[in-house]
């Protein structure tokens, strides 16, 4: 089994980064160059292995190409967990994405992170991340997917918090992890629901048993599906858990490119694609709306952001919303397609922004300017000539994300919009979905070009630094060039199709949609049919909205015909909301975190200051009180005080004799007599 390269190579791809992590974290400090070559070497190897797998897949050209292997992890007789890997076309494409972007990131980081105090740990964590991401990709069952899922969260935590001296970074990393955990809880509940019904964790048995319709169906299945989808909501930063991703930009920029743009956040989409067969139609509707809302919401926020990475972050959220929308409307291969293209161009956009920030940083450093924010676009402008490679590469990717023909984004976005449109055509009550989709597409074109114009065009806003801006070193530009070129459509339509308007190509041939396992759902053919009908309309519309967006940006930020300031003042309310990200953080803080912390403090107070102090210690106090009372009753406390001094036995004999009895004793006798009386009356008469 293991000799089979289709099993062995994925396993190597999985574990090589882990090995690199272990070597670099423990011995990195002692190795030359802090062991970065170990990390880069291993990751490039995995990339090559992934290329081999891809080639195999490509040569096979079989949509049902699939390999798998598993071993028994836990076996208690009835309760069994087998962990294993599943290698099919989807996996291989995803592996390629991950290893490619990861390799690029490693190489990019060689220069970007040079001289960092925790250089080796950075590379180690990248290795850990790649391992866990590959784990998600290769998982053939829910448990190992969940495990990798959480591990991805941890590597994200570690990398976002790489510069933990900054409070903002520490906070962001914690926020990312906890927000993800919220989603993971849903994921886990979904797993438990599925397992308790189906009795299996592996994907295939689950699909089969759902298809059987006996074990689980209806509302339960919907809830299970939505629970699992919660995981995607957290990881893919969907509304309402989208708040962590923009903050995650506190991490180093290559990390943002790798994890928070291309791969990790796409894991949610990947999972939805992988598990698409379990979603019931009602679950899908919820998913679609979540995606649509996320897409439009993030786009609206992105238009007003000034931090270059924040714009890209919200753009990522918005694009992820598109993908989720696609899943929800049933065209999940389109979602995956968009994942693929988006990974390329968005990673590239981040590298480019990293390149810009890197040089800004150096320039500011040279100018001894420590106050200017190197990420604020308002401080940039006119970098076009200083950084040509970065500029052109970024432009290409921007065109791709804006959905301009000839570029990859056009193909995938078009597929999604077509799917959404056809869905709305068949379910007119859900007309908002395509509306949000197209509006978000327009906004995307707008804010991306706003970014381009503000950064590279026009006049420098701060002249003093522009002279120090120059192109980044080769380690950084080479990934930029590579990924920039991958934004062209041609790489996705090979080998048959050279028409930039049609998405048909190896991807659509090899990644074919499967029927939902839920009985009664639309078949994949029907969905494809419907989408096909909507294709041209969607294409037209998307071209129109993209042009409008670009034009608007051009007019506002290049030609300055329309004053952005005027508009923002005119729509002050909306502008405020957009600028402040719809006050999500503030409201969460006020209505969620703070009450929760207060609850924790109240509970702790209850536990320690109240329950323990008054209730538990109350028993002790009560005992002591009783003790005092009975002590007083049994023997006067005042007498006790004098006992040791024999003051009670004072100086005349008569007094001693008189006081020899304290009244208590006679009280006692009185009680005794009274007690006997009562007993007599009760018992005898």
């Amino acid at each position: 089994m293991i000799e089979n390269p289709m099993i062995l190579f994925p396993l190597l791809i999985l574990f090589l980064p882990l090995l690199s992590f272990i070597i670099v974290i423990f011995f990195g400090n002692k190795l030359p160059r802090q062991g970065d070559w170990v990390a880069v070497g291993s990751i490039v190897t995995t990339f090559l292995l992934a290329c081999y797998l891809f080639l195999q897949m490509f040569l096979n050209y079989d949509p049902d190409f699939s390999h798998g292997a598993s071993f028994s992890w836990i076996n208690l007789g009835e309760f069994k967990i087998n962990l294993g890997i599943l290698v099919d076309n989807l996996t291989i494409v995803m592996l390629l994405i991950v290893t490619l972007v990861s390799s690029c990131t490693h190489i990019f980081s060689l220069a970007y992170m040079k001289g960092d105090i925790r250089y080796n740990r950075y590379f180690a964590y990248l290795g850990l991340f790649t391992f866990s991401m590959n784990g998600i990709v290769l998982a053939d069952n829910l448990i190992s997917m969940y495990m990798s899922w959480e591990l991805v969260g941890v590597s994200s935590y570690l990398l976002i918090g790489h510069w933990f001296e900054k409070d903002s970074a520490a906070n962001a990393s914690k926020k990312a992890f906890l927000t993800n955990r919220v989603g993971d809880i849903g994921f886990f509940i979904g797993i438990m629901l599925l397992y308790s019904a189906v009795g299996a964790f592996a994907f295939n048995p689950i699909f089969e048993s759902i298809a059987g319709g006996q074990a689980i169906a209806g509302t339960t299945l919907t809830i299970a599906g939505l629970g699992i989808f919660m995981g995607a909501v957290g990881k893919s930063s969907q509304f309402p858990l989208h708040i962590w991703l923009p903050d995650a930009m506190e991490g180093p920029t290559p990390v943002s490119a790798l994890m928070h743009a291309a791969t990790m956040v796409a894991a949610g989409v990947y999972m939805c694609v992988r598990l698409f067969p379990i979603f019931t139609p009602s679950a899908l509707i919820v998913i679609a709306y979540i995606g649509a809302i996320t897409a439009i919401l993030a786009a609206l926020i992105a238009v007003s952001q000034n931090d270059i990475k924040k714009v890209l972050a919200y753009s990522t959220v918005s694009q992820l919303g598109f993908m989720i929308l696609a899943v929800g409307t049933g065209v999940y291969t389109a979602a995956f397609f968009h994942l693929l293209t988006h990974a390329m161009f968005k990673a590239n956009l981040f590298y480019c922004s990293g390149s810009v920030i890197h040089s800004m940083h150096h320039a500011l450093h040279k100018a001894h300017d420590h106050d200017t924010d190197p990420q604020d676009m308002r401080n940039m402008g006119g970098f076009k000539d200083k950084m040509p490679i970065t500029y052109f590469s970024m432009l290409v990717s921007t065109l791709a994300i804006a959905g301009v023909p000839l570029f990859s984004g056009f193909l995938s976005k078009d597929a999604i919009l077509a799917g959404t449109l056809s869905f709305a055509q068949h379910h007119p009550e859900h007309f908002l979905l395509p509306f949000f989709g197209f509006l978000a597409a327009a906004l995307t074109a707008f804010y991306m070009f706003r970014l381009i114009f503000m950064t590279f065009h026009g006049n420098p806003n701060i002249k003093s630094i522009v002279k120090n801006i120059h192109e980044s070193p080769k380690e950084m530009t080479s990934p930029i060039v590579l990924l920039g070129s991958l934004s062209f459509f041609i790489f996705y339509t090979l080998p048959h199709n050279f028409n930039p308007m049609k998405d048909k190509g190896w991807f659509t041939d090899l990644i074919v949609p499967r029927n939902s396992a839920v009985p009664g759902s639309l078949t994949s053919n029907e969905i494809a049919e419907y989408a096909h009908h909507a294709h041209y309309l969607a294409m037209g519309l998307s071209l129109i909205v993209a042009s409008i967006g670009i034009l608007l940006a051009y007019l506002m930020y290049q030609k300055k015909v329309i004053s952005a300031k005027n508009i923002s003042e005119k729509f002050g309310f909306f502008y405020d909301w957009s600028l402040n990200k719809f006050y999500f953080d503030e409201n969460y803080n006020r209505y969620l975190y703070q009450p929760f912390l207060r609850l924790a403090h109240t509970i702790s107070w209850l536990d320690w200051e109240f329950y323990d102090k008054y209730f538990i210690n109350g028993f002790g106090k009560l005992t002591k009180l009783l003790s005092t009372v009975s002590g007083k009753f049994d023997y006067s406390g005042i007498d006790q005080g004098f006992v040791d001094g024999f003051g009670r036995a004072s100086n005349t004999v008569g007094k001693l004799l008189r006081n020899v009895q304290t009244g208590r004793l006679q009280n006692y006798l009185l009680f005794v007599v009274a007690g006997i009386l009562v007993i007599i009356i009760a018992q005898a008469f």
Partner: protein
Amino acid sequence: MADIVFWIISALTVMSAAFVVLNNQLVYSAVALLFTLFGTAGLYVFLWADFIAGIQILVYVGGILVLVIFGIMLTNKIKSVRISHKSMQQGVGGVVIFWFFIFLFLALTKAPWVVTEAIEPVGTVRGIGILLLTDYLLPFEIISVLLLGALIGAAVLSRGDS
């Protein structure tokens, strides 16, 4: 006639007993106790217990009571016989004891005592003597050990050594 004497003696006994516990002057109480003890001895006579009556007067009146008065005198630097001492909780105590008495007496009167008719013996000394040397030999002997101990104890405590 005998009844009248009986009641007089009884009244004397009880009333002087009441005096013992109610009077505030210790010496008066002691004297009242004397009358109670005498009265008790009288009752013993009515109960055909001539020997016990004699012992009562000899030991109780002659011994114990003297000891008691001696104790009173000794422990109070007597300047007059009016050695006052206070009582406490007489009210509540009185009520409780009163009811206690009522129920005690009720219980006693209702109880089926073992009653056998008997004729008045000539004297009880002989009978008591025989019993002491047969059935009750052991208590009788033990009493002697006890008296020995009491003697030693009293001597130890009151001797003025050290």
